[in-house]
């Protein structure tokens, strides 16, 4: 091999290698992947419950939105920029690990601050305090910050998720048509609330899908991680969603502490 290969020879050789590579034998992964998705320590709840929950959520929102007051509230809701908090059903425990995974890369809060392209809003209420886990996910030009609170006194741990509360912060807008077209469930109620001066919504009855437009205007669907009550509100240019199995008063108190 003293002469250098011509470009076409190199390309032909590369294709030839591609045809000869000793690739892994084709493996049937579907059942293994499925098992992983169903495994109790992962997000089994999602596979098991997602279809039913999605249906329920859609019906509920449709019903809710049919009511003039709720519709107006939902429309307002739609104009929030976008943060998520998740309520959790309860069961006492000794700090179990989360049973679900969260989107994005796990990092320290300091790393998250350096990474995300908005100023995160954090709770000053000692009932929440510093998050146990912080995840940042970047989708295109949008950043999603997820704060996980594994165990907090006074907040039950979600049996499905294995954590007490989740806060999701994003920039974007909630799209009225998307929300009207898709979102709530029978038994879900949406109440306009005031979160330390900012307009917000208290959603009770386990909504499961959240539709909004990201900062680029792309329609985005998000699954609420802890089926339960949710407080959505704005703080500056950030929309927050808090999911936790807490009462409305408790949620409002926690929400008001986000600075």
């Amino acid at each position, binding site marked *: 091999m003293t002469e250098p290969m011509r470009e076409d020879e190199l390309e032909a*050789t590369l294709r030839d290698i*591609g*045809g*000869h*590579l000793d690739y*892994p034998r084709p*493996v049937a992964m579907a059942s293994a*992947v499925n098992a992983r*998705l169903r495994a109790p320590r992962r997000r089994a709840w999602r596979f098991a419950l*997602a279809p039913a929950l999605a249906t329920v959520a859609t019906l509920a929102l449709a019903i809710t939105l049919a009511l003039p007051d709720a519709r107006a509230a939902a429309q307002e809701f739609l104009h929030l920029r976008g943060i998520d908090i998740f309520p959790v059903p309860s069961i006492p425990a000794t700090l179990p690990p989360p049973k679900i995974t969260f989107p994005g890369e796990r990092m320290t809060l300091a790393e998250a601050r350096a990474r995300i392209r908005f100023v995160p809003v954090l709770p000053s209420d000692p009932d929440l305090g510093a998050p146990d886990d912080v995840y940042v996910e970047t989708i295109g030009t949008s950043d999603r910050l997820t704060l996980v609170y594994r165990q907090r006194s006074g907040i039950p741990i979600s049996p499905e998720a294995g954590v007490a509360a989740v806060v999701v912060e994003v920039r974007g807008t909630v799209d009225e048509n998307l929300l009207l077209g898709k979102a709530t469930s029978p038994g879900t109620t949406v109440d306009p609330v005031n979160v330390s001066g900012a307009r917000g919504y208290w959603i009770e009855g386990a909504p499961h899908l959240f539709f909004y437009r990201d900062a680029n205007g792309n329609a985005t669907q998000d699954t609420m991680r802890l089926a339960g009550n949710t407080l959505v509100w704005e703080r500056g240019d950030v929309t927050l969603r808090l999911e936790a199995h807490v009462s409305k008063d408790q949620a409002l108190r926690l929400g008001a502490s986000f600075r």
Partner: protein
Amino acid sequence: MEGRPTEDASLVERAKHGDEHAYAELVTRYQALAARTAYVITGSDEEAEDAAQEGFVKAYYALDRFRPGAPFRPWLLRIVANEAINRRKAAGRRPTVGLSVVEDRPSGDTALSPEGAALASERRTLVLDALRKMKEEDRLVIAYRYFFDLSEAEMADALGVARGTVKSRLSRALGRLRALMDEVPRND
């Protein structure tokens, strides 16, 4: 290759709403390509399979953020490739990977003369040695183009770069491949 975009879109939509059979179908459809992509990076069957599997799990949880109408295949490959690269880096990368070829499997549809076959085999060995020493990212670009025949648009999506960047990426990778081929393979 396996691309059936319209069906993919409907399977993705169903999977998003919790239809596990739909997701299983997507896994079945792309498992070989996913494992091969991971293999190009890790050079190990076992690691490739683990990375591909983990990639499918991560992709499932990321479906919420999958843009409706976007092609699924390159999006999946991006997740799988990242997973494979991260695993390899986390494990402390070795300078070379164990990519290997099956010498006795005929490739192409034209029978080569014995001399032709010998030359092809010699070239394969030379290029393969260089490929083994490349950075994962460079090897991946080359594999997408020459092993898996991805289109430029798919490559852009799979690599997470602008479409106009694909050509220069590929050309730089080929340049580095040549540089490695020029290093006389006597010291390892």
